[in-house]
């Protein structure tokens, strides 16, 4: 009897929890569904209360490419994201390795500086940095956002360092005993063992660049040829005789690459997020 009520209690609990989850989940998914449906509506229909496309305006996805330079936006975003990511890996992996595994006099000072640089709002230093790029003559392009990655990105160095710390030093020591130099240790021993960490850092960098709005606003707003998707989308509604249907189609298209990358690398990604947050 007692056992029976307890299990019934458990079943009721189970149903209650899952019902709440289902309702909440539906609320979280609803915006995406509504945006998707709207992206198939004509401009006039988006201004009505109906939420099911009638007729289906498949054309929105074609018009998105013909009425605005969406292809150019995608090309720019891809360049920004891919180059930033490659540059970041080349520069940040060695730096993170050194900070994690090699003891030297100022390592703590440098690490502290990296944390502060990572946390500092970019707007704090934006005036001198903008002036610097203006003097060099690279404003109006995405290079001021790409090139700094050659000198490491504070967040990536931090993240990668945390990954390197999880690898026992014994492996590196063994390689050193075998006569490998630090570069050899890094490339032959450490990198293969932190592949998922590097992948996570790469994905974060890719997403950051793909989503970046402030940087492109600052550096490329005056040069439409250099606009990436995030900035283009922000100016999209309103400038080209646009309607919400088409705007939502572009919104879907801008989001799609991120979602695809996520589903291919979900595990690595979640691991990475946890490493940024688990401190206690």
């Amino acid at each position, binding site marked *: 009897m007692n056992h029976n009520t307890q299990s019934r209690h458990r079943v009721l609990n189970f149903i209650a929890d899952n019902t709440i989850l289902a309702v909440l989940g539906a609320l979280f998914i609803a915006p995406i569904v509504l945006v998707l449906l709207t992206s198939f509506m004509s401009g006039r229909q988006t201004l009505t209360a109906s939420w099911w496309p009638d007729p289906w305006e498949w054309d929105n996805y074609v018009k998105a490419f013909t009425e605005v330079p969406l292809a150019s936006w995608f090309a720019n975003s891809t360049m920004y994201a891919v180059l930033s990511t490659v540059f970041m890996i080349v520069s940040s992996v060695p730096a993170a390795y050194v900070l994690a595994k090699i003891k030297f006099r100022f390592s703590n000072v440098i690490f502290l*500086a990296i944390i502060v640089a990572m946390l500092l709002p970019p707007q704090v230093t934006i005036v001198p940095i903008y002036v610097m790029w203006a003097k060099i003559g690279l404003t109006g392009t995405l290079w001021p956002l790409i090139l700094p990655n050659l000198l490491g990105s504070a967040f990536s160095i931090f993240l990668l360092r945390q990954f390197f710390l999880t690898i026992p030093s014994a492996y590196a020591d063994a390689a050193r005993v075998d006569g490998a130099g630090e570069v050899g240790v890094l490339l032959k021993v450490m990198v293969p063992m932190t592949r998922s960490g590097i992948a996570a850092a790469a994905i974060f960098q890719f997403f950051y660049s793909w989503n970046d709005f402030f940087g492109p606003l600052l550096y490329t707003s005056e040069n439409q040829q250099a606009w990436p998707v995030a900035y283009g989308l922000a100016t999209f509604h309103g400038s080209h005789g646009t309607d919400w249907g088409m705007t939502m189609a572009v919104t879907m298209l801008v989001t799609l690459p991120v979602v695809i990358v996520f589903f291919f690398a979900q595990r690595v990604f979640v691991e990475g997020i946890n490493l*940024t947050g688990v401190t206690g």
Partner: protein
Amino acid sequence: MLTPAILGLLVFFVYPLVANLYYSFTSYDLLSPPRWIGLRNYTYLFTQDPRVAAAALNTLWLVLIMVPIKILASLGVAGLLMKARRVSGFWRTVFYLPALVPPVASVVAFVFLFNPGSGPVNAALRSVGIAGPLWFNDPQWSKPTLVVLAIWVMGDVMIIFLASLLNVPREQHEAAALDGANAAQRIVYVTLPAIAPVILFAAVTGAIAALQYFTEAAVASGVASGKSGVYTKLSDVMGYPADSLLTYTEWLYARGFGSFQLGYAAALAVVLFVVTAVFMGLLLRRFDAFNPDGRS
């Protein structure tokens, strides 16, 4: 191997901090050399600027209201997923998915969904007889609507909470249960203390992110005001409606790069630096936490 990174720190961190301080005492528009004007930027900032107070208060609002709500929401969902034993797979993805949407895309979508006249949200409210508010077009509602957006994209914080909740040893719960603690007591005495450092981390990084809140507010103002087009000055529409969405960093951008008062923008940046430093201090007191192997 560290040289590029050190160079990076010097060029993009140390030098700009120093140079920014210098610029803050000048009048500078890039066209003629910076002109030393002493404390005039600061006097204007603290005594005359008609919009900086609104910008600072809006940002403070985001720190004090949006950040805690987002954290509570993430904790709530993470706790619910734990309780329903749905920690991985489908449900986790459902709640995480919105966090993946690029911020500009999510704001554009929200301005459409919450459009007071033709948006689906108010259409749904109307169908049950409620006259919905003006959301992004009402100074009273614009920030709360951004909070709704922040809750929608809480996935990254939620994942961190989930991981730390999973790390809470089961034995502690069982021991507490044996001692007669009920579910609520177990949360207060077992779960919360165990994940407190993670909550603190999320709160401080969330606060620092809120201090630089820019994209969502700027895009919401632009699209909701109907003036986001190619040749609108973005800094003209910033803050719409009625400066309710004007954030501190937007104001810095508008002064610095909308009107090219770079000296004044530098002064605003110095103040932002000081405020951020306080929050960073909170985090860096736990500097050791960044060194899991105890090395510091």
